[in-house]
C-alpha cells in the first residue's frame, strides 16, 4: 500500500509533478543527446582516419618508426601480405612506399608525406579515390601522376595538370627530386591530412628513391571488415608474425597506437560528456529536493497523522524515498525514451553541419554528424537517475522525520 500511496502522491499536484518530470526528461535528453553527438563526432573522426588512410592496422620495419627513413623497409613483403589476406576478418591490404618529402610549385613549397601506392590495391584500403573533387584518381596517360589534397593545392597555388617537384631522400641518403603532374585533387574531412599528404604511384616513387618496389615496401596497411575486430586481428597477426617481430623485422600497430591522439580525444569526449550529464543530474537533484520539500511541507498534517497512528519512521522514510524515485524515474524514463528517439532518428538522417564545415574539417571532424550511443549508456544513465533520486530524497525525508507528530497534526495549512 505504501507503494500505491507513493505513486498516487506523485500525481497529487499534477502540474508540479509534470514540470519536474519535464525538467528531468529534457535535462536527460540534452545530456544524452550531447553525449551521443560528441561520440558520433569522435567516432566519425576515427572512421575518417581509418578509412582515408591509416586503416585498422599497420606494419612497419621498427627502425622506420624512429626517424621515418625509407631505407628501413619491410623486405619480402608479398609473403606477409598474402598471409594477412588469409584472415577472414581482413577486407583489404595495401603496401605503400612512404617518404618524407618537400613538394614545391613555382610559387612555394611545403613539407609533405609522399605515399607511393599501388592504385588498384589502394582503392580497396583507403577511400581517397572517392574524395576526388577535381581531376581523377590517377588513370591519366601522364607520366609521374600525383594526387594531392585541396588544401595543399591551394597552398601551392596549383591546379590539375600543374607540375610540382618532389624533393626526397634516396635510400642511399642522397637528395633527389622528380617532377610530377597533378592528376587529381582530393578533399577529406581532415584538412590537416589534406595539406600534408601527396599520393603517387608506388613505382614512380620507388624509382625516385631507389627502392626495389617488387620486393620492398615501407608500410603495409590492413583494413578490416569491422573496426571492433582490430584487437582480435592484432592478436592473430602478432601470433602469425611472432618470429619476425622477435627478430626486429616488423612491428604491428593498431590505429590507436598509430594515432593515439584520436583515441585520447574519443575517451576525453566521452568523459567530458559524462561529466556534463552528471552536472545536469546534480542540477536536477536540486529541483527534485525542492519539489519534495514543498510536497512534504504541504502534507505536514498528514505526515503528523501517519506518525501518530503508528507509522514507523522507517516506513515514512521509505514512502518519501519511493515517492521521489517514482517522480524521478518517470521523468528519467521519458528522458531516456526521448533521447533514444532523437538519437535513432538523427543517427539515420545525420546532422548537417556544413555551415561550419571548414572549422570542423580543420580539426579532423566531418561536417555530417551521426549521433550514436551504446545501449549500455541508457542503462547506466537510468541507474544514475535512480541514484540521484535516492540521494535527493534523503533531505526531504529527514525533514519529515524531524516533525513532532503532536504539532504536525494541528499544523495550519
Amino acid at each position, binding site marked *: 500500500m505504501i507503494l500505491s500511496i507513493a505513486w*498516487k502522491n506523485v500525481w*497529487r499536484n499534477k502540474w508540479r509533478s509534470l514540470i519536474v518530470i519535464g525538467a528531468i526528461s529534457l535535462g536527460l535528453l540534452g545530456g544524452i543527446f550531447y553525449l551521443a553527438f560528441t561520440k558520433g563526432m569522435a567516432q566519425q573522426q576515427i572512421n575518417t582516419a581509418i578509412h582515408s588512410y591509416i586503416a585498422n592496422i599497420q606494419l612497419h620495419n621498427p627502425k622506420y618508426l624512429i626517424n621515418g627513413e625509407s631505407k628501413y623497409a619491410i623486405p619480402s613483403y608479398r609473403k606477409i601480405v598474402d598471409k594477412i589476406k588469409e584472415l577472414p576478418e581482413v577486407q583489404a591490404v595495401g603496401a605503400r612506399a612512404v617518404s618524407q618529402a618537400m613538394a614545391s610549385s613555382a610559387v612555394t613549397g611545403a613539407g609533405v608525406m609522399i605515399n607511393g601506392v599501388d592504385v588498384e590495391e589502394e582503392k580497396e584500403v583507403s577511400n581517397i579515390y572517392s574524395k576526388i573533387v577535381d581531376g581523377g584518381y590517377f588513370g591519366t596517360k601522364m607520366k609521374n601522376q600525383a594526387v594531392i589534397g585541396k588544401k595543399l593545392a591551394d597552398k601551392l597555388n596549383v591546379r590539375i595538370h600543374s607540375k610540382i617537384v618532389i624533393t626526397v631522400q634516396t635510400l642511399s641518403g642522397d637528395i633527389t627530386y622528380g617532377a610530377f603532374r597533378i592528376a587529381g585533387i582530393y578533399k577529406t574531412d581532415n584538412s590537416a591530412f589534406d595539406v600534408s599528404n601527396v599520393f603517387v604511384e608506388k613505382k614512380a616513387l620507388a624509382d625516385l628513391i631507389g627502392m626495389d618496389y617488387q620486393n620492398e615496401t615501407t608500410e603495409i596497411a590492413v583494413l578490416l571488415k569491422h573496426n571492433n575486430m582490430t584487437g582480435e586481428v592484432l592478436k592473430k597477426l602478432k601470433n602469425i608474425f611472432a618470429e619476425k617481430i622477435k627478430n626486429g623485422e616488423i612491428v604491428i600497430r593498431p590505429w590507436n597506437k598509430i594515432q593515439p591522439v584520436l583515441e585520447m580525444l574519443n575517451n576525453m569526449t566521452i568523459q567530458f560528456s559524462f561529466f556534463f550529464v552528471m552536472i545536469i543530474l546534480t542540477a536536477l537533484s536540486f529541483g527534485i529536493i525542492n519539489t519534495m520539500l514543498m510536497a512534504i511541507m504541504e502534507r505536514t498534517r498528514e505526515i503528523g497523522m501517519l506518525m*501518530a*497512528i*503508528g507509522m*514507523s519512521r522507517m516506513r515514512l522514510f521509505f514512502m518519501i524515498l519511493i515517492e521521489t524515485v517514482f517522480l524521478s524515474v518517470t521523468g528519467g524514463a521519458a528522458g531516456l525514451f526521448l533521447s533514444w528517439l532523437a538519437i535513432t532518428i538523427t543517427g539515420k538522417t545525420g546532422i548537417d553541419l556544413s555551415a561550419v564545415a571548414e572549422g570542423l574539417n580543420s580539426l579532423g571532424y566531418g561536417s555530417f554528424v551521426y549521433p550514436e550511443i551504446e545501449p549500455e549508456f541508457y542503462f547506466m544513465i537510468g541507474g544514475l537517475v535512480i541514484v540521484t533520486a535516492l540521494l535527493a530524497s534523503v533531505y526531504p525525508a529527514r525533514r519529515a522525520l524531524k516533525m513532532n507528530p503532536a504539532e504536525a497534526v*494541528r499544523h495550519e495549512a
Partner: protein
Amino acid sequence: MEIIKTVNLQKTYAESAVPVRAVNDISVSFDAGEFTAIVGPSGCGKTTLLNLIGGLDNPTSGEVIIDGMNLYSLKPKEITDFRLKNIGFVFQAYNLIPVLSAKENVEFIMNLQGVPKKERDERVEKLLEQVGLKDQMNRRPGELSGGQQQRIAVARALAANPKFVLADEPTANLDSASTNNLLDIMLKLNETENTTFIFATHDSRVMKKARRLIELDDGKVIADKTN
C-alpha cells in the same frame, strides 16, 4: 477495570521566554468502556494531556501507565509501535489521506499492522457499515462532507482494534447535525463494542453526551464529575 492512569503528569514548554506549564501535576485514571470528555477553556491543557496519554509528546515529569505499563519507559520506536497496536486517534481536521478512498483510509492502519487482506476487507466493511458509510467506501475524502470524513476517521481509529480512542476536538469543524450523528455513532460503539472514548473538547454538545467530564484549568484538574 482501569486501563489508563496518569501519575503526577507534568508538561512544561520551556521554549518561550516564560516557561508554560501546560499540564500541571495531573493524576487521573480511566476505566475501560468510558465515554469521557476532557473540557476547559482554550489553552487549559486538554490537547497536551491527550497527546501525553497518546504517547505523542514527552512529559516533563510523571508517568502514563497503560494496562500497568509505563508508556514513557519505552523507546521512541516502541512507543510508535504501541500506538499502532493500542491507540486510536481522531483529529479535529479529520486528517485522512486524500489520495486514498474511504475504504483504503480505513484499511491503511491494518495494513501497517500486517493484518491479512481477507480480514482487512471484512473489518473495513463492518466498520464502514457501523459509521453508516458503506455505500461511500470508494469515494475519496474530497468527495465527502466534513461529517462523513470524520466518521471515516472514527472507522480508521477503530480499525486498529485499539484499547481506547483519543479524539481531539472531533466536532470542532462540524455542524450540529453532523456532530449529533457522529456522537450517536460513537456512543453506540461505546455501548455495543465497549470502546473507550476520551475526548478533548470545548463543544457543549459533546459534554452533554459524555458520561464523565474532567475539567481542566491552567493545566490542573479542577473538577472530575460523572454526567
